[in-house]
């Protein structure tokens, strides 16, 4: 079982679109896949037409496998399950602070699922806190969508520094350009500069696309409703690139 996190300190960079489409692509490719919606806003769950999970007792997520399994929902697609967001997730940080081994709780929890799934995708909330550190420990690969702008470049650097300063493995980080605009000169320039500085950037670039924006209307992955469009092809390419690096 592999764990892939879609993560960024910044919001609105395409984390959820990435999680949803990669999860779909993975399931289509024959992998038993679980998408965990860690973001209390529940956008991933919404895209899969799944309402918020029932109100749970404090700490259910990190304490009991059975409770965790009970909250998993099958999606409309084969081999793809969702653990929907729950409003109690907003208290993750506080909860974790009160626990022992507080930075490895998520990893321990996911390990319990290793016989059930081939791949777990974590859709993470934008933040850098104790939950994020749990993600850094639990994930085999951390996908970081980066919009090719100066501001995004800065947040990416912050993340790298954080990893360096806290002893996390930088190798896990796999950035890729997201929401890039092909007719935007500044984007072009940033992409070139960042690729020079950070050779670990993935080859696939996810361009800004109306097709992706429409996910909210369709409430389905782009790959499901616009399978042949360039956006879908880009996500498929991204998935294949991830498979080779896992």
């Amino acid at each position: 079982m592999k764990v892939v996190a879609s993560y960024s300190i910044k919001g609105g960079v395409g984390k959820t679109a990435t999680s949803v489409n990669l999860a779909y692509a993975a399931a289509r490719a024959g992998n038993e896949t679980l998408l965990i919606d860690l973001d209390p806003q529940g956008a991933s769950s919404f895209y899969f037409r799944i309402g918020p999970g029932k109100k749970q007792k404090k700490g259910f997520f990190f304490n009991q496998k059975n409770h965790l399994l009970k909250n998993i929902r099958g999606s409309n697609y084969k081999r793809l399950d969702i653990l929907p967001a729950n409003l109690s997730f907003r208290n993750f940080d506080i909860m974790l602070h009160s626990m022992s081994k507080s930075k490895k709780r998520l990893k321990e929890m996911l390990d319990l699922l290793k016989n059930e799934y081939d791949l777990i995708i974590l859709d993470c909330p934008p933040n850098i806190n104790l939950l994020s550190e749990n993600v850094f420990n639990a994930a085999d690969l951390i996908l970081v969508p980066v919009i090719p702008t100066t501001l995004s470049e800065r947040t990416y650097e912050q993340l790298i520094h954080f990893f360096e300063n806290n002893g996390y493995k930088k190798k896990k980080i796999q950035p890729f350009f997201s929401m890039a605009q092909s007719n935007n000169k500044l984007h072009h320039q940033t992409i070139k500069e960042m690729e020079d500085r950070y050779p670990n950037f993935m080859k696939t670039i996810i361009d800004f696309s109306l097709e992706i924006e429409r996910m909210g209307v369709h409430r389905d992955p782009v790959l499901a409703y616009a399978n042949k469009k360039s956006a879908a092809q880009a996500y498929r390419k991204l998935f294949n690139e991830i498979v080779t690096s896992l």
Partner: protein
Amino acid sequence: MKLSKIRQTRYLLPDSMTKKSFLDTLGQHFIVKQIENNLEKFALLDSFEWALYEHRIMAVRHENQRISLWFEEEDILDPDMAHNIEHISAKTRFWWEFPESSERDILKKLLDLRALYPVYEAMLRTEQFNLMDDDGKILVFCQLITISYPENIRTPILRMAKIIPVTGYKTENKQAIELLKSLGGFIPRLSPIDSLLGALGITPKPFSIKPGLKLDPKISSRTAASTIISIMIHKQRQTEHGVIKDIDSEFLHHYRVALRMIRAAVAQLKEVFPPQDVISLKQRFGALASETNYLRDLDVFILDKERYMGLLPPSLKDGLLPMFNDFEQSRAVEVKRIARWLSSRAYKQEMTELETLFENGYSALETHWSEQPIIELAVSKIQKRYKKIQKAASKITHNTADEDIHEIRINCKKLRYLLYFFGSLFNKKQVKVAGRHLKKLQNTLGIFNDLSVQTEFLENHLDQIEHQSRKNILLIASLGGLISSLHTMQMQEREKCIAALAVFSNGRNQGLFKQTFVLPVTNKKGKSSQ
């Protein structure tokens, strides 16, 4: 999720249920969206022996283009769970004609030389429905399978629904089940395959060429002999349609095995029939067998083509091809001739007469043995036959002529048939052990014999070849290579035969036969026990 394998539930629905009532009922709780509706000709496939059914496997041919296999009974007819073999033609029947795959490997084990052929043909409609909430979230999957006759699609013979739960939607799954129940749906009592076959009115009758007798030791010897022959005539007749349609070579093989057993019964139990009747019966059944000799020879050679090619160096392999082409052509002609013969009025009349002779016990003048209890005849026959083999085997040396070994082989075969006929009269366990020893010996002797028969066949073929053309010269060279290969193998097999015969005739086996095939001990009250 992998481990928590979702429990699916299958319901048989009343034939009278309409699609509208089905949709309306499910619509009470769900938004029902049909996502698939596929109507096609389908054929249920199995071998004549129902080998797939025996292993709880189901095979279906769709429109003569694809074969679907289900290895788990729970999954049958579910298109998503099928193992498909694509790009096949209507003629694809044998495992070796399928593309290489793990499915083919399984079929190989199950079918061996048997063809996979349609045992039932009808129309199959597969419909899939998503049962959803207002958001379009699928809560339950539902499959509806309808089987009907091609000429009357609107009147189903069978309707079956399968409810496939979605993880995390237990309540909704229960709701769907309740709705199906309200339509008159019920969980079949039998397993999925049996309930399907039952609903279609198919009763699998696994075929075995063994007589499978359960004789009463006290019945008269003639009654017993009549029963044996009658059963074997029935088996012989069961294979006829397969020979006529040329489904696979096993039909003819079993046709001949049945005849051989009948002839063995007539010849070995000759004491129960008047002598002049024995001569006539031998002649009549013998004539039936000899009619099929040539076709069987051709079958054996064609089936062994790959093996023969493997015995030759690459340079000589191609030389054999014209011969096999000749065989194939001769076979095509011969199959038609045999089919005509089996369908002829004369043949049918002969068979009806023979059937009638034995059906209700053979009626003729009494003989010395005809009214004796069968157990006595059985003991005497088996003991004599074993002693004969044992005596001959003990005389075998490295200088013994091949003919003597063949003689023993024939006696072993006779003993085997006696065990088939009378095994049920004796201790089951001991008969099984004796049978196993005999089988082992027969296998060894059989290989030896096959090699000499094959050599003879090839030598005859060699004699008939004209020497002029280059093609024939190549064939002659290949045949030479083949014959010498077979000869070497036969020499090796001879040694094995000698060793096997020594084992079969040793003291332990003598004891086994002596103790197993005995008359029951009769106690004072006249009750017998073994």
